[in-house]
């Protein structure tokens, strides 16, 4: 290739988006010179619209190299070596698109002839997509093909379900429509961040808002075992023993309840917006009116028990009372009829449960000084401004500028229920839930509609929101899993929305392929497995063993960017046009995911900035071809018309529906979506076509700030947050236990124990130690906690083969290194840059040591996900990965089906990466 060619054309700047991580989309422009993309720049047209004013995350700067990476797969490929394994050369040979699609089509026809479900009722077709739903912003109209096909098993995770903020997703959505949680950063004054690495993984919106807040004077206290990127930018770092966050939060609640006057709490919020006054009977269920079955509370005015929704009642928050007549309704409609029964408010139950958890007690668990805990509780209460209000969009709302956020490993795996509950209770105690300055949800994914959090709030039973929960009653429980992670069978809170499969215990799907429990019909391989923007052989756990399981998949079709550790086992590779080469319109704005609180809502276009490399094809073209060849064109187009392209093509006052019988071009499809989206957003006032979007990039309409908060909707609908007492979950857990035992399933018993109405402290770290002992290993041989952390350059984006990311990330101490406490390193004779081996009972990873002061002496930190052996460029780096070390284990799986990035490890100095 000639260097420095003559500039024949003036450079163009083309608007598009990056959604490589869940914190997107970032709006950007690409400088194109002579048809070559050369430079990523912010989209300055988004000033005043985008919360970070059109700035672009560092990951997006890798898109230029991503486009021109010489290691790309640029033609369809077919495997010639029938043997699969890490040690096998796949023998991929180029084939035509026709041959590739014909081969896949024949397989799919064969499956349709046999039936979409196998003899165990499980889909014969499986698909795995990467992080947090982000592939949906790149896969064009593939969802329409998937919808047209029918049942597909999405159980084979690449981390979803267990490495996401899982318990926050499930409990958060139950309690305050908070699939994802954020502080109201623009107004918060005190933020207690338990391991939430928002400066690395919150995207540009989080970084922009948090920086403004810091300079404004917000205090963020970072509580975590090591001094992360976010810890570095915080006012205070509190080192805490891994997996003891729940104990610290319990102690904060204890301090608020027992070390400060009760009137300093937001008693009105607790009384009116939570179930705190509801009375609990001797069997642990709500005392209910015998006729209406409504929960009872004690009315101060009448001096008796009345239904929770009685007009003019003055509920009593705290205490025990004798109720003349009441019933309790237990699992499977078990009924207790009471006369003169003693009932306590759920607030009292909660307070008594928290009474033992003093700061001194917590110090013994968390290794955080009691004085620090007590001070944080006092600061939290002082900053909460209980009683104050503020006006937003003409609405007077409570002003509670304190928030608590949780990070991964805190809010997934054992102990996460404690943490998510305690975090939400900390907000409730001072009325800081879903109000300005407080702790907010941003997204709904289990309930509908996904695009409108407030509209998902509908009245349900007992004064709470109606919630999508999987049934556990004898007549409705799904004994036969519909997918291999058994999300509907094992995890009531996972619900049954399009996202729910990914919210089940996705590691069980993998584990049971290898070794299913006796009698479990969930351990058979799918007949064809599609893979898109995902590399589970690197991104999941126990990756060496997982690789062997993947090698046994009967048939793998991988959309492939480069060779990687998972598509090494593929039968067909399909080169899709990547980020800067393909087209899609997606939603943006409103409130969503991580710190995305906008004053606008709209859509943005990703467009071909440059021509695709080689034979790479747009995903919409591929999906359309698959649909056409599998005789599903009408169903595919119908799915597009219903909204599978991101929005329905027909609505009130507009109809841009596609002819179901025709094959439509990529441009025609997205032109229709552009028009429908703008018509829908503007109420029919404006219709913008594809040509308009290619020039302007995005379209928005205003979004009210008041709609960031659930509080006005809860007040309007007269609803209460389902806190503090988890009566419904306790009942669901007991019913689930009964169902499983009726089917002789006892291997989920430990998980059933988590269905407590109020969490109590269990020795959470001890679960990992006990699991270690059960393998026959001696705990003293694995004296460290192995944990991971994120760097923005790699956070949830597959940038391992991008040289630029590696280069700039190398300015950070933890990139590609094993971070170890300096004093410990000295004791072990380990110096900076020395090669070390980190070992768990599962496997071994190697990397260079980075002794640091900002890490607990009992903790080892390995950033990112590496240990590549097939991905070009990445495999030359010799970077370590915690995923290699972390077991997939039923024992380490909590009731929500989640685990945590945590493992007991040893460390020793070695001579080199191949030692």
């Amino acid at each position, binding site marked *: 290739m000639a*260097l420095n060619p003559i500039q024949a054309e003036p450079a163009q700047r083309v608007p598009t988006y990056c959604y490589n991580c869940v914190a997107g989309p970032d709006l950007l422009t690409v400088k194109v010179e002579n048809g070559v993309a050369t430079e990523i720049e912010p989209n300055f047209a988004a000033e005043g619209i985008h919360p970070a004013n059109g700035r672009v995350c560092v990951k997006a700067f890798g898109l230029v190299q991503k486009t021109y990476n010489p290691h790309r797969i640029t033609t369809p490929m077919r495997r010639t070596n029938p043997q699969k394994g890490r040690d096998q050369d796949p023998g991929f040979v180029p084939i035509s698109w026709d041959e590739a699609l014909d081969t896949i089509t024949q397989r799919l026809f064969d499956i349709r002839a046999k039936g979409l479900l196998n003899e165990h009722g499980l889909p014969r077709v499986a698909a795995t997509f990467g992080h947090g739903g982000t592939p949906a912003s790149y896969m064009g109209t593939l969802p329409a093909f998937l919808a047209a096909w029918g049942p597909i098993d999405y159980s084979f995770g690449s981390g979803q379900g267990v490495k996401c903020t899982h318990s926050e997703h499930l409990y958060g959505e139950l309690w305050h429509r908070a699939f994802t949680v954020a502080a109201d950063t623009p107004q918060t004054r005190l933020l207690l961040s338990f391991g939430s690495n928002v400066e690395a993984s919150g995207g540009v919106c989080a970084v922009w808002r948090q920086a403004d807040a810091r300079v404004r004077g917000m205090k963020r206290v970072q509580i975590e075992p090591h001094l992360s990127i976010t810890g570095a930018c915080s006012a205070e770092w509190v080192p805490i023993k891994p997996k003891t966050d729940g104990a610290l939060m319990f102690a904060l609640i204890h301090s608020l309840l027992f070390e400060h006057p009760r009137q300093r709490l937001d008693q009105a919020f607790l009384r009116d917006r939570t179930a705190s006054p509801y009375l609990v009977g001797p069997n642990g269920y709500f005392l209910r009116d015998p006729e209406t079955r409504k929960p009872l509370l004690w009315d101060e005015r009448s001096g008796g028990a009345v239904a929770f929704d009685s007009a003019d009642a003055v509920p009593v928050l705290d205490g025990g009372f004798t109720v003349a007549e009441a019933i309790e309704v237990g699992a499977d409609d078990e009924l207790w009829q009471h006369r003169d029964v003693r009932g306590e408010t759920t607030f009292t139950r909660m307070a008594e449960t928290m009474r033992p958890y003093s700061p001194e007690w917590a110090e013994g668990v968390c290794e955080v000084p009691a004085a620090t805990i007590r001070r944080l509780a006092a600061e939290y209460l002082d900053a909460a401004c209980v009683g104050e209000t503020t006006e937003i969009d003409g609405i007077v709302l409570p002003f509670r500028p304190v928030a608590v956020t949780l990070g991964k490993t805190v809010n997934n795996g054992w102990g996460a229920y404690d943490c998510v509950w305690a975090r939400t209770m900390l907000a409730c105690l001072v009325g800081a839930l879903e109000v300005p300055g407080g702790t907010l949800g941003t997204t709904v994914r289990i309930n509908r509609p996904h695009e409108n959090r407030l509209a998902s709030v509908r009245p349900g039973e007992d004064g709470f929101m109606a919630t999508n929960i999987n049934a556990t009653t004898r007549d409705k429980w799904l004994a036969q899993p519909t997918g291999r992670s058994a999300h509907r069978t094992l995890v009531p809170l996972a619900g049954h929305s399009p996202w729910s499969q990914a919210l089940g215990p996705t590691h069980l799907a993998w584990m049971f392929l290898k070794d299913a429990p006796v009698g479990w019909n969930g351990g058979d391989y799918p007949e064809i497995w599609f893979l898109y923007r995902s590399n589970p052989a690197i991104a999941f756990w126990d990756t060496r063993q997982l690789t062997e399981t993947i090698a046994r998949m009967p048939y793998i079709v991988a959309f492939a960017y480069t060779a990687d550790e998972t598509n090494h086992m593929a039968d067909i590779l399909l080169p899709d046009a990547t980020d800067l080469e393909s087209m899609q319109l997606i939603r943006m704005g409103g409130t969503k995911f991580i710190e995305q609180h906008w004053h606008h809502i709209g859509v943005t276009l990703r467009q071909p900035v440059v021509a695709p490399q080689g034979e790479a094809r747009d995903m919409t073209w591929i999906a359309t071809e698959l649909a056409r060849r599998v005789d599903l064109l009408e169903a595919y187009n119908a799915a597009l018309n219903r909204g599978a392209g991101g929005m329905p093509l027909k609505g009130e006052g507009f109809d841009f529906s596609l002819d179901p019988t025709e094959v439509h071009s990529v441009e025609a499809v997205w032109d229709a979506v552009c028009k429908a989206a703008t018509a829908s957003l503007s109420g029919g006032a404006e219709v913008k076509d594809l040509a308009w979007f290619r020039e302007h990039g995005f379209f928005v309409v205003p979004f009210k700030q008041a709609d960031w908060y659930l509080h006005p909707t809860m007040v309007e609908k007269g609803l209460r947050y389902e806190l503090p007492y988890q009566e419904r979950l306790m009942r669901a857990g007991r019913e689930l236990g009964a169902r499983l035992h009726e089917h002789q399933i006892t291997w989920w018993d430990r998980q059933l124990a988590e269905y407590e109405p109020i969490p109590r402290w269990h020795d959470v770290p001890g679960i990992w130690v006990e699991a270690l002992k059960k393998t026959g290993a001696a705990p003293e041989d694995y004296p460290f906690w192995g944990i991971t952390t994120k760097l923005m350059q790699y956070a949830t984006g597959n940038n391992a083969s991008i*040289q630029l990311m590696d280069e700039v990330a190398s*300015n950070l101490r933890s990139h590609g290194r094993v971070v170890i406490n300096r004093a410990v390193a000295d004791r072990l004779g380990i110096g900076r840059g020395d090669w070390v081996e980190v070992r768990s009972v599962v496997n071994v990873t190697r990397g260079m040591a980075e002794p640091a002061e900002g890490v607990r002496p009992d903790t080892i930190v390995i950033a990112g996900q590496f240990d590549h052996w097939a991905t070009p460029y990445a495999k030359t780096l010799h970077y370590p990965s915690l995923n290699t070390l972390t077991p997939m284990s039923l024992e380490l799986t909590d009731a929500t089906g989640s685990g945590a990035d945590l493992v007991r490890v040893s460390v020793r100095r070695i001579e080199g990466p191949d030692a």
Partner: protein
Amino acid sequence: MTRYIMVADLRRCVGCQTCTAACKQANATLPGVQWRRVIDIEVGSYPSVQRVFLPTGCQHCSDPPCVEACPSTATRQRDDGIVTIDNDICIGCLYCALACPYDARAKIEAPVFAYGDRPTAAEAIRFDAGRIGVAQKCTFCVDKIDAGLAAGLTPGEDSAATPACANACISRALTFGDADNPDSRVSRLLRDNRSFQMHEEAGTRPGFHYLWDKGALTP
């Protein structure tokens, strides 16, 4: 008069290296060369530790030792404070690099590319052979500033006349502008906040200022 400077607010910087990446693309620096970078510093001992992210690069000093050290006059200082290198004159002796207290200069002896010996299409189109074998460093995107000025734009206010790193910064940690204009954002930031310069004791009077501690906010 005009004195262009950069202000880095350490309260805002999160070490994300977006400025580093933006600089590398805007200036087409080869792998391993970083005119702008953010270093990761740890101070104290466990558990009383602070970790700070510090954007750095050429400080465009008022008294630049590199200019004095340069035997060929390739390194010069403009009236607006920007220190430049004339590749046609530079002999690559690196006296300038030795004189610089900020480790701001680099030299590449032979082309290197992201993926081996051959440039990608994007690297090929931006490759500048004139940079091989000579000293190189941050220019404050001087070409962009000059083009912007010629178009009537204000550096530090208009993105088309502002260095790529400041444009790209996702936390508003980097602010560029004219310190001699009392109404510029950099002047207000320096006026309203506590600041320091790196290696002030060296007497170089850097054109790079760091905001730190708890000064008043100037939006």
